[in-house]
């Protein structure tokens, strides 16, 4: 039985190369992470396009969900960035859907949660960070640097404040990526830990099983919430870049 072997809760995060590939010196193997990325974007596309097959005036359930997703992100951008943020709508929407479906697909048993890998979340956060910084310089030129100079602070304090502001700006991609990665990894590790308890405890395994049932509901919430938090923070950073402060 599986219980005889040492159960490694981190085994689920192992990258398995399904189709090993090399392009030049670069490893471009199609792994389980790649597979679930493809599944996630396919599911997101089916969810959104499938709901709009018949564009009826009074939407059905599926069409309503697709429209609610659209209006959810459109409203988020309107609230956090304002009308100047409308140009970034497709990107923000893609970002939200990618992370949401990555998280949600991870809830499917035996699947792989690609958002539980720091390199993936960091890459996304880094793209957001670079993109936001570029937007700031394009819109304000060198004046964007005034973002690091807090207003109404005594001159002498600026010696301290400006480095702090710069540092806090530079840590944004780190906190953004670690928040998502850590949440997903912790949740899935907990599942595994309690599942192994269930197996080890025999009849008393009912208790950790009950905890896992509760955790499942909780993890669905986290899956949505972390996608939301990631997107909302991106909007807030974008707002800073567009409007300074």
């Amino acid at each position, binding site marked *: 039985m599986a219980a005889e072997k040492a159960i490694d809760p981190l085994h689920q995060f192992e990258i398995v190369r399904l189709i090993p590939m090399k392009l030049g010196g670069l490893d*471009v193997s199609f792994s389980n992470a790649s597979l679930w990325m493809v599944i996630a974007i396919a599911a997101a596309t089916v969810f959104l396009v499938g709901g709009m097959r018949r564009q009826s005036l009074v939407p059905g359930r599926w069409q309503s969900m697709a429209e609610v997703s659209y209006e959810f992100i459109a409203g988020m951008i309107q609230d956090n960035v304002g009308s100047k943020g409308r140009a970034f709508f497709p990107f923000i929407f893609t970002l939200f859907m990618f992370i949401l479906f990555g998280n949600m697909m991870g809830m499917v048993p035996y699947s792989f949660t690609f958002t539980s890998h720091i390199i993936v979340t960091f890459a996304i956060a880094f793209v957001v960070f670079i993109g936001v910084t570029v937007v700031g310089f394009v819109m304000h030129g060198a004046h964007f640097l005034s973002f690091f100079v807090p207003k109404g602070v005594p001159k002498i304090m600026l010696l301290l404040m400006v480095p702090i502001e710069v540092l806090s700006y530079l840590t944004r991609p780190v906190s953004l990526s670690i928040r998502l990665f850590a949440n997903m990894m912790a949740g899935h590790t907990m599942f595994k830990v309690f599942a192994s308890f269930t197996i080890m405890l025999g009849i008393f395994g009912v208790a950790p099983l009950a905890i896992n049932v509760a955790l499942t509901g909780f993890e669905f919430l986290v899956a949505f919430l972390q996608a939301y938090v990631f997107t909302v923070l991106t909007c807030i950073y974008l707002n800073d870049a567009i409007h300074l402060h």
Partner: protein
Amino acid sequence: MPQLNVADFAPQLVWLAITFAVLYLLMAKLALPKIGRAIDARAQRITADLDRATKLKDEAAGALAAYEKALAEARAQAQATIKAASERMRKDAESREGALTKKLAADTAAAEGRIRAARDQAMASLAHMAADITKSAAERLIGQPINDATATAAVAAAAKERA
């Protein structure tokens, strides 16, 4: 921790870039325009319906105002007609009353004339009878007839003494 295996970074980053780019294109070119069109179409439809409802409401209000105006005009006209009719009737009555008064006056005058004539005639025949009576009374008293002229003169003198 498998997440820190540097050898796994490259394939994940490559496929992340590919899938994210594909999803971006699918969203930007396919899904979002579709959903946006549906939402816009609905918003436009609702706006158009509301506009039409407002227009219909205005039209109804206009029709009501016109109806009330027509009603007021009809009422005013009816009142004018009633006033004219009563005026005419009053004039008719007045003229008929005037004619009746005239006719009554004429009748009265005619009747008075007839009465006067009858009285005069009665008075004349009275004088004649008095002359006859005087003639016959004088014949009896004096035994001889007196002529008519003398009798008439005597009656007239007596009547003048009495009057």
